[in-house]
């Protein structure tokens, strides 16, 4: 019977807890952020102070939040979707959930980094790279095209994260660029070559640091995060940027779109404008190690300039919303 008292306490708590949680809902702007709080939380807080308004943010996984918005439809409480990936924005655009942005906002970044429909805009650039452990692999050994990783000499040495959005966008680019069959041959070749499967890019980076694998296909800025976490001198992983022309050199973006709920909310427009301002762009470079997309903002010091990467493949990022076909392909070959 001693336990009855905790039970009473529990019931009491249960009655009070909805009150504790009921404080939300009266915000001036609601953002769904597929970008991590650790990375963009400070930037959003500064916006809040600058505008003198109250902003509520729901942080989550980009794809899961996009699924949630799709499920919510017109009833979504969100005004703005801040995405880690162009693909998710493309999907929301296709479902008709995004509203048009102003010409001013769209004009801030090169055309290739914004929606052709005019309903989302890239904020920062992230580049596909080959990350490698210099203790096990010489840079000169690395190929200029990721397709080479299906060769027998790379058996069991390469890591990928097939469930990660940026990997899928990269495969989409390959499908669009080189055709369905080339993409299929690449994936099947990787599987036949004992490719190591990881949950996400960071897990690949951890595995590289631990010497578990030799090479990993990731985005460039993860190394920046790793250096911040461990100290630059304690990180041994190196990056190889690929020459333009193949999907392996894809330049993807993190971007933003305004949802139906934010269409008549002036703060939503202000937020998009704020993300594309010179000051915020510079802050992204510093905090996340990504490429600024707005002209005249200094890129990170330790990476080749974006122009040299030539926009990767020249692929329209809007076309990268054909994720469905990529998913079918990944499903068919058995990677997901």
């Amino acid at each position, binding site marked *: 019977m001693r336990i009855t008292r905790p039970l009473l306490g*529990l019931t009491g708590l249960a009655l009070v807890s909805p009150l504790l949680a009921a404080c*939300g*809902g009266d915000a001036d702007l609601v953002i769904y952020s597929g970008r991590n709080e650790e990375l963009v939380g400070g930037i959003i807080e500064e916006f809040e102070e600058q505008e003198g308004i109250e902003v*509520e943010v729901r942080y*989550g996984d980009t*794809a899961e939040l996009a699924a949630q918005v*799709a499920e919510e439809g017109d*009833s979504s409480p969100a005004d703005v979707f801040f995405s880690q990936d162009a693909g998710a924005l493309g999907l929301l655009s296709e479902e008709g959930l995004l509203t048009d942005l102003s010409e001013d906002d769209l004009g801030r970044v090169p055309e290739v980094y914004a929606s052709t429909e005019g309903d989302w805009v890239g904020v920062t650039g992230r580049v596909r790279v080959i990350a490698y452990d210099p203790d096990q692999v010489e840079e000169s050994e690395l190929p200029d095209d990721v397709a080479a990783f299906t060769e027998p000499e790379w058996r069991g040495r390469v890591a990928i994260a097939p469930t990660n959005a940026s990997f899928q966008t990269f495969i989409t680019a390959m499908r669009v660029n080189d055709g369905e069959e080339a993409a299929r041959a690449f994936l099947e070749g990787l599987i036949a070559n004992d490719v190591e499967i990881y949950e996400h890019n960071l897990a690949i980076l951890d595995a590289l640091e631990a010497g578990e694998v030799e090479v990993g296909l990731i985005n460039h800025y993860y190394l920046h*995060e790793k250096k911040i976490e461990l100290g630059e001198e304690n990180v041994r992983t190196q990056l190889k940027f690929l020459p333009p022309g193949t999907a392996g050199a894809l330049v993807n973006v993190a971007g933003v779109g305004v949802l139906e709920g934010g269409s008549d909310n002036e703060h939503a427009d202000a937020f998009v404008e704020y993300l594309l301002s010179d000051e915020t762009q510079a802050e992204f470079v510093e905090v996340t190690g990504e490429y600024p997309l707005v002209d005249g903002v200094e890129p990170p010091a330790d990476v080749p300039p974006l122009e040299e990467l030539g926009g990767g493949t020249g692929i329209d990022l809007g076309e990268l919303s054909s994720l469905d076909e990529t998913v079918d392909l990944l499903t068919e070959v058995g990677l*997901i």
Partner: protein
Amino acid sequence: MSTLAAHRPDRPPRLLVAVALLCAAAAACPIAYLAIRTAQAGWSDVRPLLLRDRTLELGLNSLALCGSVALGSLVIGIPTAWLVTRARLPWAGFWRVVAALPLAMPSYVAAYAWLTFVPGLHGYWGTVLVLTLVSAPYVTLPVAAVLRRADTDVEDVARTLGMGPTRAAVATLLPQVLPAATAGALLAALYALSDFGAPALMRHQVFTYGIQHAYKIGFDRTLAAVMALVLAAMALAVVLGERLFRGRAERRGASGSGGVPAPPRSLGRGLPVALALLGIVAVATLGVPAAALAVQSAESLSTGVVWDELGGAAAQTVALSAAGAALTVLLALPIGILAGRFRGRVAASIESASYLGNAIPGIVVGLALVFLTINLLPGLYQTSVALAAAYAVMFLPKAVGAVRTGVQQVPRDVEEAARVLGRGPVRVWATVTARIASPGIAAGALLVMLTAMKELPATLMLRPIGVETLATELWSKSAVGSYGAAAPYAVSLVLVAALPAYLLSRPGTERGAAS
């Protein structure tokens, strides 16, 4: 409920059946959502998804995992339970608490910790190891409860007939603990079937992996829905299998017949071995994560703790999980009473149905409730009520089991005596049955609360906007590799969950921990 304590045990009162049915139906809502999604797609789209090799491969992986974890939990749980109840151990209270504490350890933290020290542990065996370690208490606690009350007269008789002490114990005690042990193993099996965190980190591809990623990519809700339905069917098969086994075991040996508690026995030279075994399990479940978190904090530069944030997240964790526990027990009461008091197909079916939600991954339950609340009860969307409902759907079996065992422990004679003394049936229920069953029911509530604290995917999706729990903060910090900043949240999560785990380890409440 007027005939609750009456004499026709096989004909449950209609009102009770109706209420229990309603509660089970509420818990089956996500299944309805999955059915709607699948039906919208049509059979021609669903067929190839269902019949592809990948489905079979993931299904077999999941079933193998589920079976191994159930078996492993029995292998660790039963001897542990025997040691902490029947053997004379130094620091007996300490070992009793340590045997329950793994319940407070989220599977993803345990997996992460093991990988820190043994990077090569990936795959099937690593996943089995981690899931077995964290779910063994599901067996330990109810078995310990039975052993504490087990009838030792038979054991003494067996000894006088010439059996050695070990053989006598195994021969006479095992039949008595089997129903509780298999019921505990069922919870472990269902946990293994529905867990995503540990298999994901261990890179072992199971069904939940397939479902999670079907959503993640291009939000393919049809593929995910089809796979989730298959997973639910697998869970149902596991539940029915356990029921079959339990039925047989219950017929063979009476559980907890209420003999005089036997005095703990001296182990003699076996004591060091026993202590070593208990010690190894404790180090594996609790020591390894503690060490891993310490190492990570030391290596990392991001070790600053924002105490306000930490405190706020801890308070929200407790509040939300308590709300979830309260709602879960509320839904479990009619089902548990029905299952505990009445046999027959109706009671059995309703109880089995209440287990369905347990196998569906949190992300599916989350999306189902997004869909259902937005469309049916928009006022509840993104409130703690919707999240509590998600917890109720997922963790109902834990509470149903606890209520059922609690009710079964109330001797009918006592109820009948109260009736004879002139009390009405409802008063008898409130003053006699509920009081005697309450420790078991409370234990069920604690177990739900404890599990809800560790839940992540549904919490991420349904928590009120701006609200962070220890689990969501842990997720967001470790997702960008800020392991140092994540460590305090992992430690706090385990500490906060340790309190209900401790309460569950106390004699008298442990029996409700499973059943």
